[in-house]
């Protein structure tokens, strides 16, 4: 079974990715930025495809954000 990737998948290009992501939001108000992020999540989740991996990512992202957070251990 495939697990959510934890190691660096950017092959040394992490800083360039982050710069690109921040640049994509330039000139957008908060609502439009929220919309961009939502679309991005949907596109990337579809690209991943594997429901188990997506579920793991959702749990990891949800962790610490309030009631109902799933129990995935982030400290392993």
């Amino acid at each position, binding site marked *: 079974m495939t697990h959510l990737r934890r190691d660096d998948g950017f092959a040394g290009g992490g800083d360039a*990715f*982050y710069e690109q992501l921040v640049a994509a939001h330039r000139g957008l108000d908060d609502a439009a930025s929220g919309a961009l992020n939502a679309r991005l999540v949907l596109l990337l989740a579809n690209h991943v495809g594997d429901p188990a991996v997506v579920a793991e990512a959702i749990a990891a992202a949800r962790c610490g954000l309030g009631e109902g957070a799933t129990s995935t251990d982030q*400290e392993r």
Partner: protein
Amino acid sequence: MGTYQYRRYPYTAPPELGGGAASRRPVIIVGAGPVGLAAAIDLAQQGIACLVLDDNDVVSVGSRAICWAKRTLEIFDRLGVAARMVAKGVTWQVGRVYHRERELYRFDLLPEGGHRMPAFINLQQYYVEQYLVERAREFPGLIDLRWKNAVTGVRQSAAGVIVTVQTPDGAYQLEADWLVAADGAKSTVRTLLGLPFAGRTFEEKFLIVDVRMDADYPSDRRFWFQPTFDPGQSVLIHRQPDDVFRIDFQLGWDADAEAERQPERAMERVRRVVGPGVQCAYEWCSVYTFRCARLERFVHGRVVFAGDAAHVVSPFGARGGNGGLQDVDNLCWKLARVVRGEAPPALIDSYDRERTYGADENIRHSSRTTAFMTPKTAVERQLRDGVLALAGSFPFARGLVNSGRLSKPCQLQGFPGFAPDDGGVGGDMRPGTPCDDAPVIGADGRPAWLLGHLGSRPTAIAFVAGRREASDIAGSIAAAGIADLAVVAITDRRHGDLPLTELTDRDGLVRARFGGASGVTYLIRPDQHVLGRWRGWDPAALGAAWRNCLGSGQA
């Protein structure tokens, strides 16, 4: 009372004021900071006389640039000052990054052994300048160092530069073939030539405080995002010599700079960092904003810009001073050859090409760091905080945490003037790469370092199996047609009587790093960058590569 005793360097009235006709100088350097002084020493070591003009008469007031990277130390070693700097400096290679109270990760900059110089030392700029001044004074016939000589005019002609200089005793003019402008971020020469300094200002204010304390603090670089002990966005601590610590506070754009730079106020912040029980004494502080900017071109006729005069970056990543020293390393061997008439003036254009590329790399890294540290919109902050939240558990997110990408040597692979790579040689030392160091046994049978045998002149490194190969090489060096070519032979066991300078690869690291099968030959530029490499000894190929390199400005 600070730990450093500032001394004034004596001003003496220049002879030109006495009415004597000004003699023409090959090189005038404006600015006696780390970059200008290093350039003077580098040129002097190559026999080129230069005159250094500085509007002040004292070393850097305040610690300013404190982090000196391995590549810079290798350059300083070539200039004969690194041993003193390393002895005085605080050596460090581990950085630790925290989010609030939690350590997110730590990094080790130089996990690999077999290098003479450490990954980084911290040493206050005033020591660096003092050591460089003292080294420059060892060249009394070549370096004319003039304090309280302020440049007030620069005029170019086809054949050179005419400089007007103001002193306490009046003004005079000088003529030079070349002028190196190393007069800092507020460069007078840049202003006098009316050159735009385009870039981006970051809306953030920082407070630097130097304090002396007898704390048993580690030498590691420690960086906090959203520290619990300070209201600001980030705090960075670095240890310097003399038990002086640099603490860097991110204040926010709306901070009142005038109020924050009051020592009492700054020390309140410091006490919250170090805790109540630690004795600490105020040394120096400064509130700063910064921008990333560079000149479009570093070479304007006979005026060459270097260091902060040519490019400025944010301090995170230590890319200002280290970038400036790489400018010196790149420029001076070229300038020396142009002044001596051994290369066309167009060779200086390769300095422009290679160092604007280096400056862009530094600006890119430094801008990314700043963007990460100073999110400007709600979504930027969410993304940044998302990275920090995941970084404790996800290694990929640790890679995105950006508190400074520390200065690494610039790679010049693919630039004109370097030979095409001979695909048959292993190792990472492709043309355009600054040479890795490695321990060797020197010709005198004593431990030495490879880089100590490279630099200031073109040097061939030949891997030889034995005496016969060494003799063949020694007998055919002249066929390269390079007047000042040095040749070192790398052997895996010491012969002691080779007709070449023999360096024995004590630990096998030269072979490993340079893919040094027997017969492999490297040609190294005077700035210790690999110019070309070949599977066999071919003096004609070496000569062609060197002549192409010297003419490469026309590419």
